[in-house]
């Protein structure tokens, strides 16, 4: 036992004229804080603000007009549809992968985790490309589907969904795996020893333990699914009103010099990003102990 913890002062100096040996001079601190705030404002806050400034530069009326353009409306619907398919798919996968990896021991678990993380290190453009090469109408599988069933995957909605699933693949799994590994198998073993079935154990014991981490993963997965650009751009074909998602529509407006329309639609996505950040921070602040340990980059 030591009483260090209770007597160790918080960074501040308590005796005027002296400074704790483990912190910096007050003016050094002020300069460093100022520099940080400046950098963050310049690199992060300013771009975010400029989206809204550009969107409203010709007034609220012009801003709202964007959302009555049919192309913009269909882009919003398509984005919602894609996310509504991709997120549940990855949710089921994330839970299954976490159950297999975190609650059982078998050789190669670490390797499997690396494989799950793989899509993070693949360029979105390459992610789109791999599906074109496999499922395009002149590729073996895609050709077969097109000739026999008249199903188009590339330059159509299924391709967009596939690409979105690919780029958001690891989000939920990598939130759940470390947390469920930390929690161990004690609770599940207890439930089973009390006579619970596998499903009951999962539903009444495991799920409540990981619900916040699950929400956290879904949140990040959804933000990326709605915002994905590169992978979707490559294989959407950009058929207006049919295969154009919101980020793609932003690009189309922008390239047509419809600046206000582009930024108005973009501000909707920026709003989504802000909401995501707020809920994410709230989850970290409120349920930090029930999320995976450490803040990991995505």
């Amino acid at each position, binding site marked *: 036992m030591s009483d260090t913890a209770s007597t160790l002062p918080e960074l501040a100096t308590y005796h005027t004229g002296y400074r704790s040996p*483990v912190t910096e001079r007050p003016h050094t601190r002020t300069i460093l*804080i100022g520099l940080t705030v400046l950098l963050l404002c310049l690199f992060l806050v300013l771009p*975010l603000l400029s989206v809204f400034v550009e969107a409203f530069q010709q007034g609220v009326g012009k801003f709202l007009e964007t959302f009555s353009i049919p192309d913009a409306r269909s882009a919003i619907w398509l984005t919602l549809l894609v996310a509504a398919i991709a997120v549940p798919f990855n949710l089921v996968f994330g839970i299954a992968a976490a159950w297999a990896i975190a609650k059982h021991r078998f050789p190669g678990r670490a390797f499997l985790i690396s494989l799950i993380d793989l899509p993070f*290190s*693949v360029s979105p453009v390459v992610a789109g490309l791999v599906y074109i090469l496999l499922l395009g109408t002149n590729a073996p599988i895609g050709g077969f589907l097109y000739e026999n069933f008249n199903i188009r995957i590339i330059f159509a909605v299924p391709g967009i969904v596939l690409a979105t699933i*690919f780029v958001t*693949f690891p989000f939920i799994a990598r939130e759940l795996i470390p947390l469920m590994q930390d929690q161990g198998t004690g609770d599940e073993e207890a439930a089973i020893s009390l006579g619970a079935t596998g499903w009951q154990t999962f539903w009444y014991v495991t799920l409540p333990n990981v619900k916040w981490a699950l929400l956290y993963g879904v949140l990040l997965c959804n933000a990326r699914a709605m915002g994905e650009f590169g992978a979707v*751009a490559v294989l959407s074909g950009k058929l207006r009103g049919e295969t154009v998602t919101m980020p793609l529509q932003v690009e189309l407006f922008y390239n047509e010099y419809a600046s206000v329309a582009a930024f108005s639609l973009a501000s909707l996505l920026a709003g989504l990003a802000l909401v995501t950040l707020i809920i994410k921070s709230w989850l970290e*602040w409120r349920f930090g102990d029930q999320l995976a340990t450490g803040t990991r980059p995505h």
Partner: protein
Amino acid sequence: MKRVAFRQPSVIPGFRLTFSFTIFYLFIIVLIPIAGLYFRTFDLDWNSFVSIVTGPRFIAALRLSFVTSAVAALFNVVIGLLIAWVLVRYEFPGRKVMDAIIDLPFALPTAVAGIALTAIYAPNGIIGSLFDPFGIRIAYTSLGIWIALVFIGLPFVVRSVQPVLQDFNREIEEAAATLGARRIQTITRVMLPTLLPSILTGFAMAFARAVGEYGSVIFIAGNIPRQTEILPLLIVFRLEEFNYPAAAAIAAVMLTVSFLILLAINLIQVWSQRRFGLV
């Protein structure tokens, strides 16, 4: 008779179901498509592959992508360390907001970031107009690409260094001080070496992300062949020409580099675990 089991026996059910599903899904979504890419590269004979990956346009794009990504990631190491330090060590109003906003580049769709950065740094933009009178152009030059890559890579170093710094044992710093080390010596000789593995990891992740980045760059880049054309954009051009084998070849090169970076990150972690353990 003793049976050799793949997994260690346990009372927890559902292994077969979840494990098979995980592997199946992984193969369908990730592994088969990626393998397919390498297969398509083999459609090319060796000479055409070489001529693609030594063509001047490819070489220029490769150099641009890798050099700007490396410079951006290095810059991110410097400011990432500073930001992580300030967020962990100092208490100031607005700290929590600043901490939350670090993740903006992860949350903001890249296309939105791209047009926003272009609006700011274009010659008539709020920052671009400050530099324009001096003949310095940011948007539509490699400087603009660099700005975009700094933006999207900013969280990586901060988020990999932050938890390590958070858990850094105050006693270690005090020990250095009692041994006579000045504050700056403590930071450079004791703390930075300890943070090195997380710095390297953050650098590698920021670099990998920057090399593959597309959405936030293409708006600000100008996309002039051999000058401001990045590798992913070259792939897109090849695709638009329906030159699939060439696109596949470029993608294969990029993908291989990503795997090497991924390997490097894992080796860094294994190395630092072995060397330093969890003291």
